[in-house]
Every structure is written in C-alpha cells, then in structure tokens.
C-alpha cells in the first residue's frame, strides 16, 4: 500500500512540476515532444528489430551477431534515452490520469520487463560467441524480445484510445 501512495504522490508531483505544467499549457510543446517520441520509436524499433531478425537468421546472415550488436548499440542506447526522456515529459502532463490508465500501466510493466531482458539475457546472447549457442535458445530469446517490445508499443498506442478523445484532440481546435 505504501508503494501505491508513493507512486501516486510522484504522479502528483509530476503533474505540478514546471515541465508538466508548462507542456500542458502550451499549444506547441506537447506535439513537439511527441514527434521526438515517434522518431525515437522508429530508431529504437529499427535497432531492436534488426538484432532480433539477425538472431532469427533472417538478415545479415553472413556476419556475426556480436558484430551487428556492436554496430547498432550506440543507436539503440541513444534512441532509448530519447524515448525515456520524451516519454517521461509526455507522462508528466497528465501523470495522475495515467496512474489509473490500464493501458499505461501495462505499457510500463512491459517496458520494465523489456529493459531488464534487453540488458541481461538479450545482451548476453547478442554479444557472446554464437557457436556456443543453440539455435533454439537464440530463436527463443529473439521471440521473447519481440513480444516484450511489441507489448510496449501496443500499450503505448492504446493509451490514446483509453483516455477520452477530447484531451488529445482539443490541442488544435480553435
């Protein structure tokens, strides 16, 4: 129970913070931050997909997995940072409302699992010597990663449909 209270008070704090307040009351800031979130989605999704397609043996079959992983890692980390910062800013504009939004909650659950998985098992599999890995394990890791990140994406998409249409559409209406 104390955890719930802590999270809820954090949501209130975000709502009332200068950025939450500022973005909420600006015509341009919300769409502006949202576009960064979408562009981050493109690059983060692209790097996650390319790694998992490689694990599944569907792309760049001639090169090593670890080589591809090293190549795309800075872009994966950079775009994840853009996603987390822009996502947090968007969240802060209606943090208390998000607290009770089931789509947002499931997105955060998937996000937590996806990040833990990416930086532990997935990282280990994509950086280790592939001759020592069984193809079944590699396929399984790729599929788990895809499912977890798809959960994040679908949850994010659903947030907009769960909140009332008026809040998101009213920004531009004169």
């Amino acid at each position, binding site marked *: 129970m104390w955890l719930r209270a802590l999270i809820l008070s954090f949501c209130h704090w975000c709502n009332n913070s200068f950025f939450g307040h500022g973005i909420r009351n600006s015509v341009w800031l919300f769409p502006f931050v949202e*576009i960064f979130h979408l562009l981050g*989605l*493109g690059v983060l999704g*692209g790097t996650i997909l390319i790694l998992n397609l490689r694990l599944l043996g569907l792309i760049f079959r001639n090169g090593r997995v670890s080589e591809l992983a090293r*190549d795309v890692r800075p*872009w994966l980390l950079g775009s994840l940072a853009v996603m987390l910062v822009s996502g947090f800013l968007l969240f802060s504009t209606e943090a208390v409302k998000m607290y009770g939004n089931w789509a947002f909650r499931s997105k955060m659950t998937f996000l937590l699992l996806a990040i833990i998985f990416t930086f532990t098992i997935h990282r280990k599999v994509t950086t280790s010597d592939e001759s020592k890995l069984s193809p079944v394990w590699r396929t399984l890791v790729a599929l788990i990663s895809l499912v977890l990140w798809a959960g994040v994406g679908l949850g994010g998409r659903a947030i907009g449909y769960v909140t009332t249409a008026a809040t998101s559409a009213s920004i531009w209406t004169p």
Partner: protein
Amino acid sequence: MWFANFLQWLSNTPFSITMRESTWAEPIVETIHVLTLTLFVGFAVLLDLRLLGVCLRRKKVSEALAQLNPWLFGGFAVMVVTGTLLFSGDPVSFYNTKPPFFVAKMIMLVLAGLNIVIFNLTVGRKVADWDTNPKTPRGAKVAGIVSIVLWVLIVAAGRAIAYVLPLP
C-alpha cells in the same frame, strides 16, 4: 475540380463509409501504420546512417542495401496500404486540413522517392568503388542526410495530420 469530385466520390464508397463508421477499423489500421514505423523508418534511417558512415560500418554498403531492401520494400508496402486505408476513411478532410499537412506529407514522400532515384543514378551506381570504405563519398552523405531530414518531416507531418483532422 475533377479531383475534388473524385475525393467526394471516394468518401461515399461503402468501403470508405465502413472505414469511417466501424469502431475497430481505424484504431487497428492506425496501430499497424504507427508500429510499422519501426520497420520502415527505422531501417531506412539505419541505411542512411550507413551512407553517412556512422552505423553498420563493418558492413559493405552494397551488403547493407541488399540485406535491408527487401524489408524496406515490405515495410513500405504495409505503410502505403494502411496509409491509403486511413486516408480513404475521410479523404475530403485529409486533403483540406489547415495547415495542409497531408499534402505536405505527400509532396515530401515524392521528394524522398526522387532522392532514392538520384542516388541510384549517381553515386549509388559506382557503389563498388567505395563499398568497403567506412568513409563514404560526399554524394552518399548528401543522399543520407536528405533522406533522414525528409523522413523526420514526413513522420512529423503524419502526426500533425491527426491534430488538425476534424473529430469524428
């Protein structure tokens, strides 16, 4: 005039009406459109970054092109089909938004296509000369930057359309 008539005709087709009035059609199609961004824009940007010599540096440019192209074509096909479906749900409104984000997006899509054609006719044609070089020629860098800028603006314009469309 004929174009306005065409849009009017399109919006009265049973197909368009279904797209507009069904509870699930629009959210499902839009979700596919947005999430395929990861495949299409994500891979396009990775390829552009290779042309700039800042990502996938250990791969030959020709290999990156050959490996990514089938996925880019597939992703683009999904984007065009879902995008056309979304457009057909309310063609008159899409075409007439103020500011004209939809028209701007279509023009930029044509420019992105032109950029690919120009690349293939010029520096891309001689890819064998600079294939393994992590440092890429100026023409390739220009094509990469033009492409990234256009895709960023296309995504931004696409998002902006939803802000200016009238509420259903």
